[in-house]
């Protein structure tokens, strides 16, 4: 029998669907950015002073970590297209390691604030006034939601790596890897805006 069975697959549609989902994610964060901008507009001085307490060094390090992880997952797609399964897996593993590193930094960063009694609902934070409460409320919520996206992205990439190991994803069928890459890049994209808004613009 020389006839190969044609399995219908529409990569274009798969990617479009992923993008539609990413649009909803963009709108979710855009809403939060609007909230941030309006509150910043109303509490300029408090936001200015509160933002000074965030570590620019840790923020910059985390930005660079995420940028590198974005490049490695993009390279992983190139590797699978060139039929280099091993390199593709190594690059995904590096991406996952960098994602964990980001979370570890975030853990210490948050831990430092929480030790200083700065967290949503803290009575000591409340004494510092409405502006600080709003700034740190938004800081914890937005970076927390972002960190949640990092965790989801890492699970997604983990599943994809498993599929590559089991040869379900190869140089002829890698749209799932591309979609996990798109998700990871979106998480990076959101951080590109979170970083200047919370750490840099003081």
């Amino acid at each position, binding site marked *: 029998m020389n006839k190969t069975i044609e399995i219908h697959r529409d990569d274009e549609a798969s990617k479009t669907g992923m993008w539609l989902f990413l649009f909803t994610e*963009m709108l979710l964060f855009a809403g939060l950015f*609007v909230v941030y*901008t309006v509150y910043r507009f109303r509490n300029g001085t408090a936001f200015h002073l509160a933002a000074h307490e965030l570590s620019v060094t840790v923020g*910059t390090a985390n930005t660079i970590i995420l940028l590198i992880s974005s*490049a490695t997952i993009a*390279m992983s797609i190139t590797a699978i297209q060139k039929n280099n399964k091993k390199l593709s897996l190594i690059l995904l593993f590096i991406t996952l390691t960098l994602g964990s590193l980001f979370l570890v930094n975030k853990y210490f960063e948050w831990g430092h604030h929480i030790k200083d009694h700065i967290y949503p609902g803290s009575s000591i934070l409340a004494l510092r006034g409405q502006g600080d409460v709003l700034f740190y409320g938004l800081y914890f919520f937005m970076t927390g939601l972002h960190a949640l996206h990092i965790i989801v992205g890492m699970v997604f990439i983990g599943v994809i790596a498993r599929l590559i190991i089991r040869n379900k994803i190869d140089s002829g069928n890698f749209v799932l890897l591309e979609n996990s*890459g798109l998700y990871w*890049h979106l998480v990076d994209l959101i951080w*590109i805006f979170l970083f200047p808004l919370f750490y840099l613009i003081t």
Partner: protein
Amino acid sequence: MEQEEKHIIPYRTLIIVLGILITLTLISVLVTQISLGTLTVAIALLIAAVKSSFVLRIFMHLKFENRFLTSMVIAVILIISAVIFITLLDYIYR
């Protein structure tokens, strides 16, 4: 349905883009350390916008996608910018 072969981004391009992104990050950190007032906000956001265009076009492959997808992404970005812009106008001139 005419072109079925996929576009492959060379490793070199990805590494160059990564280099540009890291450089832009460091520039934005340095620029914001110097106090330039309201200009700081504009510069930081402008650099963020440039960075995101690199991520969208190269890492997210949009430069090589069909026009349907790219125009959809542009439309969503325009809608988001319009919402932010109009909300701000409301708050500034209320």
